[in-house]
Every structure is written in structure tokens, then in C-alpha cells.
């Protein structure tokens, strides 16, 4: 991602996140998958993108909701902007980022959160592929 300004990266990241959330919410099939993986729980993920910005999303019922201010996320994921972009573009899976040590995952119940959000990030990568990113 060298040569791209912080502003462009920020816009790209926010665009990918918003587009991903909208597309996921528009798909009954995907929402059903999310509902199954959430098992009726409220779980929120806070993404701390190093030297960049903090953003997050959660699941309300079966819909993803972008949240700019999450007070008590069930899990916090700390990762670089490049890792984030690679994940949402499907160049790196959330699982790979998690197990290759490219991200820190902080939370008392992170195994459960990993399993839940892995499903969601899988959907992001499908969307990115469809968008030709």
C-alpha cells in the first residue's frame, strides 16, 4: 500500500467496511449464517488499526451495525492498516491473520469471538471479490 496517503487509506477502509456491512445486511442467506454463529448473543468487535483509527461493528439481531464508539467490546482486535485491507480484500483470511500473529486479539472470551467474527470476515472477503477489489 506504499504511495497511498493516509487520507486515501482511511477513505478506502471506511468504504470497505460500510460497503461490506451494507452488502451483508442485504443478503438473507448471509444474515442467517451470522445469526447462527452469534447464537442469540450480543457480541461487538472493536478494530484498532495501528497508527490509524479505531472503528468497530456489532451485531444487533442478525444485522451488522457500524459503531464508532463501543464502550465495552466483547473483543478488541489490534492490527495494521495493511493487514486490515488485505483481510477485507480477501488477500489474507481473518483466520490467517489471527494465527500468523498479524493481529492481537484481546478479550476474555476471544476463542468464541474468533469463531464468530471469522464467519463475518469470510463474508467480507467474498464481497470484496465480487467488487473486483
Amino acid at each position: 500500500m506504499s504511495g497511498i496517503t493516509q487520507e486515501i487509506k482511511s477513505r478506502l477502509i471506511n468504504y470497505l467496511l460500510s460497503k461490506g456491512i451494507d452488502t451483508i445486511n442485504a443478503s438473507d442467506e448471509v444474515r442467517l449464517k451470522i445469526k447462527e454463529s452469534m447464537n442469540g448473543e450480543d457480541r461487538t468487535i472493536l478494530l484498532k488499526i495501528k497508527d490509524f483509527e479505531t472503528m468497530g461493528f456489532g451485531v444487533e439481531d442478525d444485522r451488522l451495525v457500524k459503531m464508532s464508539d463501543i464502550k465495552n467490546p466483547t473483543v478488541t482486535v489490534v492490527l495494521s492498516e495493511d493487514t486490515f485491507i488485505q483481510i477485507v480484500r480477501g488477500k489474507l483470511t481473518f483466520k490467517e491473520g489471527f494465527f500468523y500473529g498479524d493481529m492481537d486479539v484481546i478479550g476474555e472470551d476471544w476463542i468464541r469471538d474468533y469463531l464468530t467474527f471469522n464467519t463475518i470476515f469470510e463474508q467480507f472477503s467474498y464481497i470484496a471479490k465480487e467488487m473486483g477489489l
Partner: protein
Amino acid sequence: MLKIYIVASTKGGCGKTTSTANIARKLSMKYNIGIIDADLTSPSICKILDAPIKKLKIGRDKIEPMEFNGMKIFSTALLTGDDDMPIMFKGEKKRGAIEQFVNKINWGKLDYLLVDAAPGCSDELIELLDIFNKKIDGMIIVTTPSRLSVNSVRKLVNLCEKKNIKVTGLISNMDTFRCPSCGLHTDIFGSKDGVTKIVNDFNIQLLDRVPIIPNVENRPMMIMEYFRWVSEVL
């Protein structure tokens, strides 16, 4: 009443997982067994049991362990679902993982929980000892007669003494090799005095001497006969 045993060694490749698998299979004939694969970055209990990795189910409160041949199993291998995927966990992630393996998995009613420890005395073992504290019924220590392994295991036995953990006994694995062609016994690691010395110095039970058996890695239950002590000791 749940009994908790840790199968440990301070050196890798001694046969902890093969021993855990045999103990588990032996116990599972009569009891409800859970196995925690606490070797987080190099899990192999599923592999040695030849248990196919299944997708984990997330229950309302807890995650369901994988069931195989009547045994409940949890391992990082179930999280990756991919044998070739490297697992790079820092210390804090390791510590959190073990705690969740114990408390966030729906183990149900178990008679025995066997923990296949990671080699060494690092994060995983420290965490296990912290979490289980005084609930550990015993540590089953696996060594080979190798001088390096024996020397390392002496430290582990010392650690158990300091932490007031009962050493259930010692398994001397790869103790000798009998040539299938000529029947000649060869002690691959040289003298076996080190194993005898640990047993005498620390007054611990030698559970068995298990020879090297070709292909045991692919058929781990071939050595089940060396685990007759399980029903008497555990």
C-alpha cells in the same frame, strides 16, 4: 468426582501425546473422558487419535468440544481446521487460551480430564498450574532414556515437588528397540541408568518402559498393552 491428570515432559518428541491417547482410550472404556490439547502451537492429539476435525458448534454459553470415540476433545487444531497452518501465539494469548479451554468449553460431566501439555516449562504449563491449582490429581511424566531428556525431566519433577503436585509416575518411552528381524535388543539412547536414578532419587513410580515400536505414530494403540497400569494407578 472429576480427576485431572497432566501428561507432561520438558522435552518434545518424548511421546506425551501418544501416551495421552493410550491413557484416554483405556479410560474411555469405562469412564467419560475429556482431553485438552494444551500444546497450543503444535497440537497433535487429533492427529494421533486419527480424529477427523469437525466444525465447532458454538453453544449458548459455551463452545461444544469435538467428540470422538466417546471422548471429548479440545485443541487449537479445531480452531484452525487446517493441519498446515502455523500457529503463532504470544505468551498472553497462550495464557488466555488455556483458561478458555478449561472454562469456556462445555465439557459436561466428566470422570477424567487429561491434559496433554506442551513441552517445556513455559506459558502453557504455568497457566495450567495456575488454573487448576490444587485440583490436579497427578502429573504423568514421559521421558526417553536420553541423557538430555532425563536431565530435563529431573527439573520437572523438582518443580512438581516445589508446587506440591503429585507425580503419578514416570513412563520411560522409547526405552529399547527390538529388531523385528533378528530379535536383538538395542538401547538406542545408551544407558538407561538415568531413568532408574530419577525413580530412586525422587521415589516415584516407574509406570512402564515402552519400547520403540515401528509405525506406532500411525497406530498409537499398538502400545496399549504398556498402559495396563492405568486402571490401577489413576
